[in-house]
């Protein structure tokens, strides 16, 4: 690991003052420390933010507010989260392992890099790690890579599970910077890779995620998070679907859908949502609507299976969320 300054701060203002180009905030450290050991990230200053008052889980008029430093395990177990948005709890419990969930923060989870194994290997080229060096995944091993939102520069997926649930539910992130705060829809927080895959989100240098605000939808208790992976547990998603659906008298009134493991960012499935609204809540409707999920998909040599896997996962998640069998 490269040498670095270690600093702590107990107020947001102090933390922001300490930030400078080349510095990194440290929360749970579960991905920052790993990438520093690999020399993929080489901050010359590490600012420990764990003493900042960015904690708490509260139900407000504006929605469910989750502090950025809340730990994944605490959010998953929180009675209010479970009652209001069980999908969030489910997505978290299907992430990583018990030890990692105890360590990892919600802010750090949203900030984990959009990445692939080539990114983690400093001896290989990677447009994200070294802009302009090329993307070996385009012609190399790309079974786990994205089919949606890709560019000729980068085809890596965003690996967060809870971000998929948040995006489905229309969550916003509250950011704090030196010039004050701003609120951004999480869906717009993430950027498509385009020709600049090294820029993954709109967070400016020296800006922090303070909290996540999730709108409360009374019907979204009928929801699920379905995660398909190569092994039963402790693995990233090949495909995942967050679904919440409001069915009255057998007809879909409203629906929220997003997918993970298939996009270069957490992927809201708006076309599928629109196709579902007003439809009869039966498998046939779900399957027809799911077709539009893969419009514009660009499968690679090893991941074409994700187009059918995604469509089937959407159907299964909808059946489960709607309680239809």
């Amino acid at each position: 690991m490269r040498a670095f300054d270690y600093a702590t701060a107990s107020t947001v203002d102090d933390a922001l003052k300490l930030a400078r180009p080349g510095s990194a905030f440290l929360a749970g450290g579960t991905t920052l420390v790993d990438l520093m050991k690999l020399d993929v990230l080489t901050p010359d200053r590490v600012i420990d933010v764990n003493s900042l008052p960015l904690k708490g889980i509260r139900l407000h008029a504006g929605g469910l507010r989750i502090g950025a430093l809340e730990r994944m395990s605490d959010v998953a177990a929180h009675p209010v989260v479970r009652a209001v948005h069980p999908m969030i709890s489910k997505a978290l419990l299907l992430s990583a392992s018990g030890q990692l969930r105890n360590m990892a923060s919600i802010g750090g989870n949203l900030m984990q890099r959009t990445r692939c194994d080539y990114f983690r290997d400093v001896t290989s080229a990677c447009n994200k790690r070294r802009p302009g060096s090329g993307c070996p995944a385009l012609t190399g091993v790309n079974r786990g890579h994205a089919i949606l939102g890709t560019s000729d520069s980068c085809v890596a997926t965003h690996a967060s599970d809870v971000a998929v649930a948040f995006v489905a539910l229309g969550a916003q992130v509250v950011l704090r910077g030196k010039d004050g705060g701003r609120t951004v829809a999480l869906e717009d927080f993430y950027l498509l890779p385009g020709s600049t895959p090294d820029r993954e989100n709109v967070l400016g240098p020296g800006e922090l995620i303070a909290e996540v605000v999730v709108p409360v939808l009374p019907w979204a208790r009928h929801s699920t998070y379905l995660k398909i992976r190569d092994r039963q547990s402790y693995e990233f998603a090949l495909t995942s679907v967050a679904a919440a659906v409001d069915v009255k008298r057998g007809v879909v009134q409203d629906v929220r859908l997003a997918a993970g493991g298939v996009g270069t960012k957490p992927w809201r499935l708006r076309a599928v949502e629109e196709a579902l609204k007003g439809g009869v809540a039966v498998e046939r409707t779900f399957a027809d609507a799911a077709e539009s999920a893969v419009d514009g998909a660009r499968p690679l040599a090893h991941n074409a299976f994700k187009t059918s896997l995604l469509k089937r996962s959407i159907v299964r998640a909808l059946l489960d969320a709607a309680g239809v069998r």
Partner: protein
Amino acid sequence: MTTSRRQFFGRAAAVSAGVALTSPLAEAIAAPANDTGLVDVAFRVNGERRRLSLDPCVTLLDALRERLQLTGTKKGCDRGQCGACTVHVDDRRVLSCLTLAVTVQGKDVTTIEGISDGDELHPVQRAFIEHDGFQCGFCTSGQIMSAVEVVEEREVRTDDQIREAMSGNICRCGAYPNILAAIKQARES
């Protein structure tokens, strides 16, 4: 470089950070960087107060094994993937290979060496012995530290739930059936 009383620096390189501390609050957060560029870290390990001067890039795993000679905690992957390095920090199981040692300032660390009561083994330790929950034993201290938390989790009841809760601890000898049996027994006692 701005320095307020709420901040402190350690410099991993051999350059003095030269920080003046003015308030006892700062010391309560952590000790200042000293002239060698190391950071003084005070924490409790298995109930005992320990103080170490550490380069900020040292992991808790290396501090325990190399500095405190607590070699019961194992280094498997050193990448957060195998669970061999599991310890408790403030009563929660965490991976010591992904924890920077400077961040446990003021905290309580428990390792496999600290869970028995004198010569009286922890019920989870006894259950692992009774059920042969290991072969080579390399993963075992991590398995046990994880299991000590898992047996307390009220919602973890069925075999599948125990397997899921323990999935962050890999056993390359494949002792899983016996580990499961040990945890089931320890849950009941």
